[in-house]
């Protein structure tokens, strides 16, 4: 009985390590081997008291047509096929209940179907930033949020998983822009 107790304890302790480690592994694997796709989005700047400063990432594409005959229900897991356009920006072009055989796709949850269209709940919504860079990020957003160029979310996609890798503006990495601005408070670096 005592041996069984120790075996159960050992397995539980192992599982308590495996769950977070599996999360890290999937994340790193997606970043390393995933396809890079770019999504045009808007990004206001809220604050999560538990996890710090983040940018709320909202891709501009909000809805997609439901294929004829597909019985979608709210909360159902579906697969969104992604196609990159001539401008280099990707968009969801097709929804399916089964994983697509080819191409890049993201697994996401469907919403209510209305007028044969459903809203897209993107599997990423937050891009966390360093607290010390946050004030500079505030200024940067105030200056650029209404720009026609728009903010681009750079997402790595692998086997239906999506990881938000970076944000960019006018071809420059968001992290780089903020670092430049932090080093050069006059704000010449955009």
């Amino acid at each position, binding site marked *: 009985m005592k041996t069984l*107790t120790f075996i159960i*304890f050992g397995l539980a302790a192992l599982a*308590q390590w495996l769950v*977070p480690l599996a999360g890290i592994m999937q*994340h790193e694997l997606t970043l390393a081997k995933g396809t890079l796709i770019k999504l045009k989005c808007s990004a206001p700047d809220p604050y999560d008291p538990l*996890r*710090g400063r983040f940018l709320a990432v909202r891709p501009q594409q909000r809805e997609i047509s439901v294929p004829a005959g597909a019985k979608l229900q*709210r909360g159902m897991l579906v697969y969104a096929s992604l196609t990159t356009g001539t401008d280099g920006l990707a968009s969801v072009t097709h929804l399916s209940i089964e994983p697509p055989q080819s191409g890049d796709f993201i697994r996401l949850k469907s919403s209510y179907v209305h007028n044969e269209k459903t809203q897209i709940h993107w599997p990423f919504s937050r891009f*966390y930033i360093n607290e*010390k860079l946050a004030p500079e990020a505030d200024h940067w957003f105030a200056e650029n949020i209404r720009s026609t160029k728009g903010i681009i979310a750079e997402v790595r996609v692998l086997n239906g998983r999506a990881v938000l890798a970076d944000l960019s503006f006018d071809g420059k990495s968001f992290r780089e822009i903020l670092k430049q601005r932090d080093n050069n408070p006059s704000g010449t670096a955009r």
Partner: protein
Amino acid sequence: MDITNNGPVSFGGPAQFYPMNNSRQRWLLEQLPQWEREGLLTADAARTLHERHSSDTSQLGLAQVVIGSLGAMLIGAGLIAVIGYNWDDFSRPVRLLFAFLPLLLAQAFGFRVLQRGDSCAAWVRETAAVLQASSAGASIALVSQIYNLGGEWPDFLFWWFLLSLPLTWVLRSHAVAIFYLVTTAIWSVNQIVPGRPWQDSPLIYPVLLLGLLPYWPGWPRKEALSISLRWVMTISALIGLASAAVFANEQAVDYPRYHSEAFLWLWTLSAAAIALFPLNQAGIDEASRRKPQVVLGALWLLGYGVATTFRDVSNNILKGTSHALELPWCWGLLAVLAGFALHACTRRRWAVLAIASLALLPLIAVPVVGQGETGSSLLSWLATLHLSVIGLTLILLDFIGKRGASRLGTLLLSVLIIARMADSHFSLLAKGLAFIAVGVAFLAFNFFMSRHQHHAAQT
């Protein structure tokens, strides 16, 4: 009043053991020497009582659980605050170290407590379990934060309570068991979203509850379960099964065409199953207040029974029953209920069976009235008749010297009379006079019963 056992109670026989809480046991043990000195007890009798009710020091008091858990949580919160103050200055590997080091330390502490076995105080066991469960949750949350993993809080909660469950078995932690019961109920309510696969829905709640099998009432255990754990378990089971019923109903047909009337009957079947949950003889012999599954289940069933006596409500229940009978979940509940009812028959739990049978009245009415028909008063009259019989039986049992509940019976009959007056077409004056008459009769009966019991005690 114990509504779970109508038979005469025997305290004789060496094999009988009646669970008593720790404070009462301590009081009894303190009195024994004096009773022996005063000649009230023989030395043999005092020794037998001492052996039977020797205080179990491994049992947890509420204060021990609270202090142990609170201490562990304060340490955890303090560490988070200290680390969080400098969080932005740390590199990713250092942050990961802070995510996993507390888990490693908590696991080492838990291992040491396990090694020491029963020589370890109960509160130390409790503290070790709470620390380990907290650090397991914290490590998932911190890794999620460090890597911006995203995801939704119910998924985090799911993994957290699942990883904490084994600690309730091996470290016998009541605090972690309560945490598990609360979080599984919260998770189940949140998962009521049609379209979810069954394995990610409240339908798996019974399996999650099965995880706490060693804590179930009636399961062979060395020590009696604490009252707080029993209440949390019952409330969690009621919420979890109610969530599963709602999900099963909504899943069957697309929104907004699902039938909300079906919930009520499915919930009532769940309450009946909970009230009839199989108990061993020691469990049956316990007082009703130590059996929250019977108290809450019976309260719901009686409330449902009285509501069913109203014609409009009974028509809605009939409509809901017709829809519910198309659901596999409903048939599963009926099968479980049948099994529990058979077990209750063998244990002679007639009072609980009588109350639980209220849930099955729609099954009698549906074939007679027909599915989808709503213009009948049959179900409301059946419910009125059933409740009246229960009320009268509870009163009569007391008069013939059996274990009854005359005041509950009177209350039930009074409520029925008031309900019938409320939906009748009599004038307000007539209704008022009837209410006064019922009130006077109730007080008179209470007075009569007090005298009757006083007289019975004297003779």
